[in-house]
């Protein structure tokens, strides 16, 4: 459909004793989120770091927007690519605002434009600029630090965002919340995101395309759907795990199956409906339904008004469909 923005063309990286990445061929399209996943040492981080030349390939080349990425100085390239890492790496001696504004500063933006951009980005990642711009990184929680890390990566409005296990060090609740935030932010900024993780849930939740790697080789590169239902080999099947039905539910947004409905007549006085937000998935809806004795679940919009219903019968039909696919494959 659209032009590939990043192309791996026969990329190999060997270190003295071992091959980290072996003849990688891959295309990532504009505005997509591509998640690299695999066990430790599979070459996913090396692949990511070769995009902005923190690692140089031994052979092969990487094209960005059709141009080899080594056609300019590495610093020029990197300033056009956002970079978020697990350790966050905020500069302790600078304020939040100075951290976010550092790439614009390197690019020589005027001060007022930097200030405006910083406030805009802090708001985007869910931090109040008035409260946070003059704080120091050590005054923030881990989750807040990574929000600043994302804002900093987006500062110069780069078309590409590289994220190397950005939520790996956070507690599960914060991680979940930041994943939701990233989805929301991506709807606004529409970047091409290359994301590395070892968490299959995270991959399925965030990815348009998942690249599964093993021992430096690309095993399968496909949509989350296809990875779930048409695993290329036993390794992928094992990696995806046994609860494919649940994971597949996590790919279906509630708005795609909800029925419109008024709260009044369908809301008998003796029970309170469970609710899920419009942005949730059927997996969330199932959890909500189970918690409420498998009754109908209300879908509410941002203002808390009922936007529709997930009927018990509809939910069970979807479940049966998925189960039959599970049996078939």
């Amino acid at each position, binding site marked *: 459909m659209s032009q590939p923005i990043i192309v791996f063309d026969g990329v190999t990286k060997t270190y003295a004793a071992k091959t980290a990445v072996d003849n990688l061929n891959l295309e990532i399209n504009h505005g997509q989120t591509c998640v690299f996943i695999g066990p430790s040492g599979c070459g996913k981080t090396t692949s990511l770091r070769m995009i*902005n030349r*923190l690692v140089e390939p031994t052979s092969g080349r990487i094209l960005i927007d059709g141009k080899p990425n080594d056609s300019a100085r*590495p*610093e*020029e*390239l*990197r*300033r056009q690519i956002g*970079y978020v*890492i*697990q*350790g*966050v*790496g*905020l*500069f*302790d*001696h*600078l*304020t939040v605002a100075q951290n976010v504004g*550092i*790439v614009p500063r*390197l690019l020589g933006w005027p001060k007022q434009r930097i200030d405006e951009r910083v406030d805009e980005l802090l708001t985007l990642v869910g931090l109040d600029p008035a409260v946070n711009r003059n*704080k*120091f*990184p*050590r*005054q*923030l*929680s881990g989750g807040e630090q990574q929000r600043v*890390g994302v804002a*900093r*990566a987006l500062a110069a409005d780069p078309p590409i965002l*590289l994220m190397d296990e950005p939520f790996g060090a956070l507690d599960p609740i914060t991680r979940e919340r930041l994943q939701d935030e990233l989805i929301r932010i991506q709807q606004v900024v529409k970047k091409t995101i290359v994301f590395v993780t070892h968490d299959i849930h995270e991959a399925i939740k965030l990815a348009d395309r998942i690249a599964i790697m093993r021992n430096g080789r690309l095993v399968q590169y496909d949509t989350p759907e296809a990875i779930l239902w048409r695993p290329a080999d036993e390794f992928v099947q094992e990696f995806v795990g046994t609860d494919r039905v649940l994971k597949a539910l996590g790919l279906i947004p509630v708005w795609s199956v909800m029925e419109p409905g008024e709260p009044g007549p369908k809301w008998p006085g003796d029970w309170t409906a469970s609710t899920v937000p419009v942005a949730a998935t059927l997996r969330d809806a199932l959890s909500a339904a189970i918690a409420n004795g498998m009754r109908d679940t209300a879908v509410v919009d941002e203002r808390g008004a009922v936007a529709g219903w997930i009927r018990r019968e509809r939910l069970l039909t979807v479940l049966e469909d998925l189960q039959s696919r599970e049996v078939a494959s």
Partner: protein
Amino acid sequence: MISRPDAREPRSQLAIVGAAATLGAAAGLPWIQSAPNPLALGSRFLVRNANLLSLIRDWPFAALIIVPAVVALIVACRRSPARAGWGLWTAGSLGLLAVWATSESIIAAGQASGTLARVALWGSGLWIALIGYGLIAYAGVLRLRRSPAANSQWLLLLPIVAIAAHAAWLIFYSEPAGNWLLQVFQQEARTGGIQRRIGEHLWLSAISTALSILIGIALGIWGYHRERVARASLYVAGVILTLPSLALFGMLMEPFSALARAFPVLRDYGIGGLGPAPAITGLTLYGLLPVIRNTYTGLKGVSAAQVDAARGMGMTGRQLMFLVLIPHALPVILAGIRQTAVMLTGIAALAQLIGGGGLGYYILMGINRASIAHILLGAVPAVLVAVAVDLALDWLGRRLTPKGLRLSKGVSA
């Protein structure tokens, strides 16, 4: 930890030691020594000595010296609130002034009446009493620092200013004194000798500290990039520091005189086997280790994540160094610089051994002439200069530490 003003404090052991030393010295050690000349063993006068007391009938001498120590002892022994810091501080400073003022009165009265011989010197008891009261005052300052109530810290400098002003008046404006120590100080100060030596001393230590900083930071940065350079330079700088300073200065004399023989023109610039050139070289070599070590460890202490993020966002090597690594390592580097500066200010006293000048001039002269007064004339300013340098760099270090680094991790505002 800041304690509440009404919290019970542990006993101030420092003040107890100070008070005990003062009282012991007043009870049994000689206060004033009197001799026909500086080399002769003179007669000793104790506080309880009737002759001595009779010299100053107008002064409640013993009480002035002893009462502040007794008060301090009582305050220090009670598990007193932080406010008692003021008590210790007042007792200590009053005691210092009393000891000094009474000793002057004794000597002046003694010489006027002919009871004391031409040369009078402070005895060991008087010195110990001065140190004891100094400890008491310092214990008070320490206690006040922990108390949030005491914000008027400038007031604490008052006795120091008073003593300095009094000393300046004695040395520059008072009548030539009978006190031998004061005589020597007066003579050297009024001929400009001591000022010149202090100037030389500061110049020697400042130049060599500056050179140590330049070379040390360069080696530290180089070592950050190449581990072998770091190991080699730290090893060599460590070996240099283990050499006795006299040996190092001696070893440098020969190359410098050879240099001056080969290029006689250098002599016009004061470079030769003797003089400031080998002294500054030796001091510079001595000062390298703290600067190299702290620069290297400071840079290495920057987290790998920050370095990776900086490179990943497109910083050049120079930007990484000046925008991230050095600001982050600055407090550690400054601590190394402070250590070097204080160390070199102290060792500069030995520069005179190879004709380098400085306050060592008086110390060596005092040793040669067996004159305590000359030794003190060199040693006291040398100590004061070192303490002043230390305090100044400590203040500077705290000022220059980025605010974001002063916060400990995980503190929310």
